[in-house]
Structures are given as C-alpha cells and as structure tokens.
C-alpha cells in the first residue's frame, strides 16, 4: 500500500482539525486549486476522506490497519525525506549541513544545544485556534558522526 506523500499529509492534517470546504482548505494549505483537486480526488479514492455537507472530512470508518500503515515508521521516514529534500533544494539555504571536527568538550556543548532545541520544540505552546497550517514551521535537528552516517547508507545498500 502506498504511503502518503507530504502534500497529502498536509491536506489530511488540515482536515483533521475539522471538516473543511474547498475554499477553507485552500486558505489553510495555500495549495492551488488545480493541485488540491487532484489530491482530494486521490485521498477520496483511497477512502481517507469523504465529502460531507460541511466539506471534506476524515473517514471515521477507515480500517485501523490502513491508518497504521500510513502512520508507521517507514511512511513517516519517506515523508520526512521529502521535506528534507525541499529544505535542501531551497535557494536561500534553509537547511545547514556541515562536517566538522568536534572535540569531546565541544561535543558536550553541541549535544546540549541540540537537547535545548528539542526541549524548546517540546514546550512550544499549542497553535492558536485558527492558525493556518501553511504558517507552521518545519524544524530539523540532530547530528551524528560522519563514519556511522555513511555506514548506515552502506548498510542500506549492502
């Protein structure tokens, strides 16, 4: 079964806040109508969403195993890769990546900074009630040594 693309996830997240008519979906996601129409069609065909008098809504009768499949680790990884690709390919360098020698002492500082960022993200207040989804921020963090990072790629291929 195909997992969700990140653009389908965006629409599902918008609808999960409550049933939405087309115009509200466009405002929330900032997706153009021509794309949104195709995405809604695809999601409807797969029974993830249904059209109600209040607009598009999540299908409450979707079998749990199908829901589990689009929310499993592998599916989420695929979506994360798409978002990373978008950040990497952005012209104004939204994502920084560097390979650097980090001493033991500086590694502790780096780990603390990363933990701080993680704590910051965990303790952010909930979004205001009508905050549009397209204004949310995608944040990436983490670090690992060069060797193990490349070894994992080899492990994925070997």
């Amino acid at each position, binding site marked *: 079964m*195909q997992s969700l693309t990140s*653009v*389908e996830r965006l629409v599902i997240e918008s609808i999960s806040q409550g049933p939405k008519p087309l115009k509200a979906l466009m405002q929330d996601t900032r997706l153009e109508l021509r794309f949104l129409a195709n995405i809604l069609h*695809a999601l409807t065909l797969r029974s993830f969403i249904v059209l109600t008098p209040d607009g598009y809504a999540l299908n409450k009768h979707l079998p749990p195993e199908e829901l589990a499949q689009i929310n499993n680790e592998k599916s989420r990884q695929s979506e994360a890769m798409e978002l990373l690709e978008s950040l990497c390919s952005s012209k104004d360098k939204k994502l920084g990546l560097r390979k650097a020698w980090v001493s033991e002492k500086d590694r502790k500082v780096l780990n603390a900074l990363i933990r701080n960022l993680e704590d910051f993200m965990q303790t952010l207040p909930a979004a205001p009630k009508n905050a549009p989804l397209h204004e949310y921020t995608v944040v990436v963090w983490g670090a690992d040594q060069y060797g193990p990072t490349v070894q994992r790629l080899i492990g994925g291929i070997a």
Partner: protein
Amino acid sequence: MSLQNRVLSEYRQLYPQHTLRETSLQTGIQLTRVFRLMNGAAMKLEEFESFSNAIGLKSQAEFQGGAFQRCALKAQQVLNEIELNKLTELIGRHIHWHILIHGENNKIVVDQNIA
C-alpha cells in the same frame, strides 16, 4: 505493449520497406534470429540495443525511454530483491506525485514549470 514489441513496432515504422535481410545487415543480428524475433522470440539485451541504435540513426533521437529502460534492465541484473523493492517504491512514489500534481495521463515536457 511490451518493450520488445514497442521497439520492433517503432523499427518497422521507421523502416517499413526493410526486408529481413536488410534488418539483419543493419542490426548485425543473424537473419534467422531476426525472423524469430519478429515472430515473438524473446529479445536479448544486445539485440534490443541494436534495434534502438537503428531507430536512433533514423530518428536522430534515442528511442523513447531508452536510457531509463536500459537502467531498469541493468538494475534487474545487479540489484537484489530488497534494493529493487526500494527502487520500485521510489518510482511509485514519484509517479504518485506526478498524478497528484498533474493528474493522470498528463506527461509534462522537460522545460515546463511544474509548480
């Protein structure tokens, strides 16, 4: 239509008057083998490439999808099942994206802005 049938069909369209002998001379494939291929025998990779080259000579363009098809054939030869499954998922996902953005049955030319 299978890839083999496509390449033979394209070849026949570009060289409608070619006899089996002329096809054999052009592709370097033995005459009896050409006959067998035209009658459904399974084509080898080298034979496919010979036909593709012949098509390329006439149309001055590589046979549509040639590079991709060659890559796919090579993948099937060298990659294991897990790797092939990963590739399949990747391609499937790419196709799905295309359908989401452009709808089904819409092929976008290379220089057209996607979104």
